[in-house]
């Protein structure tokens, strides 16, 4: 790990004043479950580190009539254990449960989950975010079994690593990004971006900004997340789906269906959303909608299997959303 200067401010203003203008100047430390590993690999070599866990206003989870607010430094465990969240937004609880090591849940933060860098093994081995060599991505003809099956026309082939991203997009959440000159509330769907060049990042966050909170509107949806994974613990999903359904009686008036870990961003399955509108969720419609969700998939040489997993994730998330929760 490269040496760095360290600060642990107690106010947001103080912390913002310590950030730099470009990546690599100052990194923000919260749970550290991704950043510290990146620093050990010299994939992150900040000159300064600003620990934001001492800033009280960035923590906590509050559910009110207007919406759910999740402070960016609330831990995954806090979110998992929150009874209000489990009742109203089980899509988050499901996703939090999927982050399946107690140690990671105790340390890792919700903001950190959104800001974690891709798990793409080319990126993690130092080939860069887009894994290009001689102007060409190594992924399409390389080891791509965990890479994208949607939104993968290049130059990015990695999958968004965020466990909460798909649920945030499905639930129409906004993410607050604050700099010393003000704040902007970015819809979750626009927070995650597909980088077009090696200098770009996979989120809208700028180096002089801190993600302070997540705001989720109360829309009275039935919602759920379903993840398909290789191992039960210590792993990221191979495919996931978060769904949020607005109901009119027993039929779905409008649906948000978002796939995770299959594209460089959480992936809104528009055809599936259209296919479900006006219908009741039955095992048959769930099957049909799930097929529509992956109709446009363009798998790479080694990841055709992910199409089936994503399809199953959508089907099961839909059925799970309709199930009465304890």
């Amino acid at each position: 790990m490269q040496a760095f200067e360290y600060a642990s401010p107690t106010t947001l203003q103080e912390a913002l004043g310590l950030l730099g203008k470009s990546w690599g100047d100052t990194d923000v430390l919260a749970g550290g479950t991704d950043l510290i590993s990146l620093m050990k690999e010299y994939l992150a070599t900040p000159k300064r580190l600003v620990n934001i866990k001492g800033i009280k206003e960035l923590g906590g989870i509050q559910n009110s009539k207007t919406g759910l607010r999740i402070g960016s430094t609330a831990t995954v465990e806090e979110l998992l254990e929150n009874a209000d969240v489990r009742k109203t937004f089980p899509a988050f609880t499901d996703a939090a449960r999927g982050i399946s090591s107690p140690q990671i849940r105790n340390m890792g933060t919700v903001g950190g989950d959104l800001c974690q860098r891709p798990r793409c093994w080319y990126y993690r081995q130092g080939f860069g975010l887009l894994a290009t060599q001689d102007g060409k991505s190594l992924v399409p003809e390389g080891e791509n079994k965990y890479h994208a099956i949607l939104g993968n026309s290049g130059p990015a082939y990695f999958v968004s690593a965020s466990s909460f991203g798909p649920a945030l997009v499905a639930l129409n959440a906004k993410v607050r990004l604050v700099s010393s000159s003000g704040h902007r509330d970015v819809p979750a769907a626009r927070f995650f971006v597909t980088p077009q060049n090696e200098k770009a990042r996979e989120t809208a966050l700028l180096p002089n900004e801190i993600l302070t909170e997540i705001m989720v509107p109360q829309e009275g949806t039935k919602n759920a997340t379903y993840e398909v994974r290789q191992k039960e613990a210590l792993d990221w999903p191979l495919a996931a789906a978060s769904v949020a359904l607005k109901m009119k009686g027993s039929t779905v008036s409008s649906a948000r269906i978002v796939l995770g870990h299959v594209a460089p961003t959480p992936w809104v399955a528009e055809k599936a959303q259209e296919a479900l509108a006006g219908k009741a969720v039955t095992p048959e419609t769930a099957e049909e909608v799930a097929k529509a969700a992956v109709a446009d998939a363009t798998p790479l040489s080694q990841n055709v299997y992910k199409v089936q997993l994503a399809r199953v994730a959508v089907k099961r998330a839909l059925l799970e959303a309709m199930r009465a929760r304890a």
Partner: protein
Amino acid sequence: MSSKKDPDNPKKPRPAFSRRSFIQGVGVGTGALGSGLLETVAHTAPTDGKFAGPGVVPITLRINGKPINLSVEPRVTLIDALRNSLDSTGAKKVCDRATCGACTVIMDGKVVYSCTVLAIDAQGKDIQTIEGISQNGKLHPVSVAFVNNDAQQCGYCTPGFVMAVKGFLDKHPHPTMDDVEKGLGGNLCRCGTYVGVRKAALEAAKEMRGGRNA
């Protein structure tokens, strides 16, 4: 062979040579304690006062109830501070990437990977390590249950696993086998002693409840 201090005679000289005492001796001389000898030694450069480091800075850690002063660079992780600066080698450094659990300690009542906590960030926390869980020379019920259930083979994951079990049982005193499997998902054992570990967790749970099946 052991480089541990003799509790009955703290002034007793250490064995002539051990890898640990060698590394420590070098570390003390260069101020590179805990940061790895091959890394460039950073020198404290005073900045605008808002930042500490990048050179060594004094910190205080509360370990097993005792406040301990030490000097480390901000980049030093808690596991390195424990093992390299404090000779507290119970927690093991294996993957060093928040994945295997061998470095597990309990911080403010929660299990964490000490390889992925900066020592400077662990200040003000109550840190419990494997060295601190026995009481009056008597093994902790979790440790006893590990012995009873053959829950270790090579033993390298054991200290982290014991802490993970303790942290889990402190929070879930009445676990089922399924709870135990999920609750210990953050620790790996390459010898495959999971069955013994899970049985040990259930036995320890019973013991910690006072031997009752309540």
